[in-house]
């Protein structure tokens, strides 16, 4: 079976499981929206432009809660399931790609809804033509975070404190994604070009793709 077919099958099953459990949209998303509300209520009246705070808070919460979404599959995997996946002949690169694609789809939806909530709660002064660059930034950040979390989950796999370790691995490595994504709106507001930030996001995503696919087999062998 081809790498692509295996990847899409892994993605399909991940999404079916997510649809039935509802972790992302029934549990994590409401908590993330509540966190946004708390920030909006806690922002002092003396802050001159609450809207600017809103976009920064959005990216912070999107990345932090997004980690929970992206890590959920690898954190729930048992040793028996890992064993059966190997004996089924599942290519570790296909597992990485499939999980990343599923997580990227979920994260894109998660961040899109969270962005709408941020706009309602903080009423930021969005620059003209903000929609597609923001959508692109969300998509690229979601793809990057999904691959980063999947890779971190594989690295931390089998460890007792894997959830904490995976989060610790993701947080610093997500910095290029946060900078790139957050600077897209910032640059538009200041009439600066956004291309450099989009390129930063694309470069980060490509680097994660290469690392994830390239490391998947050695990581599986190392876990033997």
């Amino acid at each position, binding site marked *: *079976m081809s790498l692509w*077919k*295996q990847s899409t*099958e*892994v993605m399909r*099953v991940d999404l*079916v*499981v997510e649809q*039935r*459990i509802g972790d992302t949209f029934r549990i994590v998303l409401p908590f993330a929206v509540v966190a946004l509300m708390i920030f909006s209520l806690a922002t002092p009246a003396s802050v001159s432009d609450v809207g600017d705070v809103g976009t920064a808070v959005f990216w912070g919460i999107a990345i932090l809660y997004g980690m929970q979404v992206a890590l959920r599959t690898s954190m729930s995997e*048992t040793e*028996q*399931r890992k*064993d*059966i*996946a*190997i*004996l*089924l*002949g*599942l*290519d570790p690169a296909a597992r990485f790609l499939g999980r990343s694609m599923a997580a990227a789809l979920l994260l894109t939806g998660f961040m899109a809804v969270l962005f709408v909530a941020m706009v309602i709660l903080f009423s930021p002064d969005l620059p003209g033509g903000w929609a597609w660059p923001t959508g692109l930034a969300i998509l690229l950040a979601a793809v990057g975070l999904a691959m980063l979390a999947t890779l971190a989950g594989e690295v931390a796999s089998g460890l007792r404190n894997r959830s904490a370790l995976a989060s610790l691995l993701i947080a610093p490595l997500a910095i290029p994604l946060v900078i790139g994504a957050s600077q897209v709106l910032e640059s538009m507001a200041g009439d600066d070009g956004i291309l450099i930030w989009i390129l930063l996001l694309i470069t980060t995503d490509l680097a994660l793709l290469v690392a994830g696919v390239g490391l998947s087999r050695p990581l599986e*062998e190392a876990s*033997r």
Partner: protein
Amino acid sequence: MRLDSVGVTLGGVAVLTDVSLQLGSGEAVAIVGPNGSGKTTLLRLIATLLRHAHGVGTILGADLGGVVDRSVRTSIGLITHAPALLDELTISENLIHFCRVSGRNEEAAPKALSAVGLENVAERPVARCSFGMKRRAEIAWLLIAKPRLLLLDEARSGLDSEARVLVDSLARLTRERGGGVVTVSHGEGDLGLDVVAVHRLENGRLGKIS
């Protein structure tokens, strides 16, 4: 399959020491031993899921110490003491998923489920299935997969007599196809199949009983 003086160390602890075992085509061997003796570790080693610390071994022609080819792993069938199905999917969906990932024909799933008596509960989520149903589903998968090497980790324990017969039939079919069977159990009374040798594993060391 052949293991010569193989040892496995997990977390700095020697779990298996100087284990030698041989299994020919169409043969079955049994390994008995108490809890914690290393039975599951031995089966995971044979399944190429663990790396050994010393010794040499070949599994279906593949060197145990090297990178194991996909075709070898897909020829190994493993039933562990805890069923490895996805709880959120139905029994049927699990089998179809296994077929798709391994490149096997998913149209074989309904027939296999019928063969193990699960045709009426095929659309039940695994989370709402009994242990026996999950075990039957695993047997159904292995009927489709037709492994050349079947590894049974206390596969008969906790099952009713009908399900035990299914496990025994699976082992018999594997041997009739020229495959090998390794079964582990707490005692000789739980084996349920004719074996060429019974070994006792104790404190990670293997000794032949018969």
